[in-house]
């Protein structure tokens, strides 16, 4: 069932990857001693009842009827901290300490989507400097 597994490990608790950073949950992972997991269910589909006002405005601005590429954005966990993967810098961006996390993955995903948009569209994003340095025309 969507939202309950990753890489063959059962997700037992919403805060599992905040308390257990080793990630070696399944027998298979213990056997090979290695884990390169997504730390979230990549196939979890968004619940459109939980879309935030910010994301609704974003969809309107872009002329989309749904979350489009954001359907694949989820809140993950990196080194025991909540984070979201930014494909534009190919790395995890950690969520500020003290940010209150909702108690369910769907709302956490909406928060991650909102923060990612704010980060990608800000002038602080590393791509802004890269663009200045490497753009061809």
């Amino acid at each position, binding site marked *: 069932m969507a939202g309950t597994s990753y890489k063959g490990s059962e997700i037992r608790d919403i805060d599992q990857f905040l308390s257990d950073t080793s990630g070696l949950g399944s027998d298979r992972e213990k056997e090979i001693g290695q884990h390169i997991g997504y730390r979230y269910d990549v196939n979890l*589909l968004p619940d459109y009842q939980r879309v935030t006002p910010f994301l609704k405005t974003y969809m309107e601005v872009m002329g989309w009827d749904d979350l489009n590429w954001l359907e694949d954005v989820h809140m993950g966990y990196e080194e025991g901290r909540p984070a979201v993967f930014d494909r534009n810098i190919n790395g995890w961006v950690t969520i500020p300490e003290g940010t209150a996390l909702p108690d369910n993955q769907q709302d956490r995903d909406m928060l991650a989507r909102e923060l990612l948009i704010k980060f990608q569209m800000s002038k602080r994003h590393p791509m802004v400097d890269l663009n200045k340095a490497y753009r061809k025309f």
Partner: protein
Amino acid sequence: MQEDRSHAMGMHSEQLRGRSQQMFFEPDAEENFVYPDAFEVDYNKRTEFDAKDMSAKETNLKIRALMQDGHGTIVVKNPMARHAMGVGILNRLNLYFEGSLGYFGVGVIDGPNVRISGRVGWSCAENMMAGTVVVEKNAGSLFGAAIRGGDLVCKGHVGARTGIDQKGGSILVGGDTGAFSGFMMQRGRMVVCGNAGHNLGDSMYDGTIFVGGSVKSLGVDCVPAEMSDPDRAWLKRKLALYGMLPAEGIDHFRKYIAGKQLWNYDNLEPSEKKLVL
């Protein structure tokens, strides 16, 4: 020249220590829904031009110039099936091609809503990041190669290796799809309303494929799975969005996912590899 510029900006002094970025989000950041360098366009400001006697580069530069002038809806007449048309658009935009595109049409786009009234050649919307692309007729091979996000729709049939190396987003095909569709798929969703060719989902790592018709054969590590209620709801909504919901509904669709035997492939013993393959 470019390297000098990047050195002058101090970009090569950073020590990369891992994949985590200690550059925190600003939850209270100013609301901005487009990239800082994006052109400010208005969807109600519409224009059109005839590309019959223009090269692909001239056409692409013209689209860029029109965006710079604030046009949010651009109609390109007579694209003449030229290659690499409408590529590299990182902007919100409604773009209509009245005709067909050649190879590598609308590749590397991030945001625009594109509609193509004709057909497209190989590798349409390769590396697409976000937005929507709707092709009214048929598409060639490698449709949506390495797509990372957005909705890519072909209302007709598509060729082989559709969605090869798909890393996200949704690919919707109204008709049939050729061999090796979903090859090395990593995530995202693919929907084939018609039949699928040989080796569907070969070597797929993750992601989901839905097929409405028959499947000639499954590739290595592609296995059938049970449809869930969220799957059905998503499928219905997405197909309806593009006017592709079959009259008989979606109950006949079947779902395919990765068997997950190829995960950690490098750690398998030779005997285990034989079992997988």
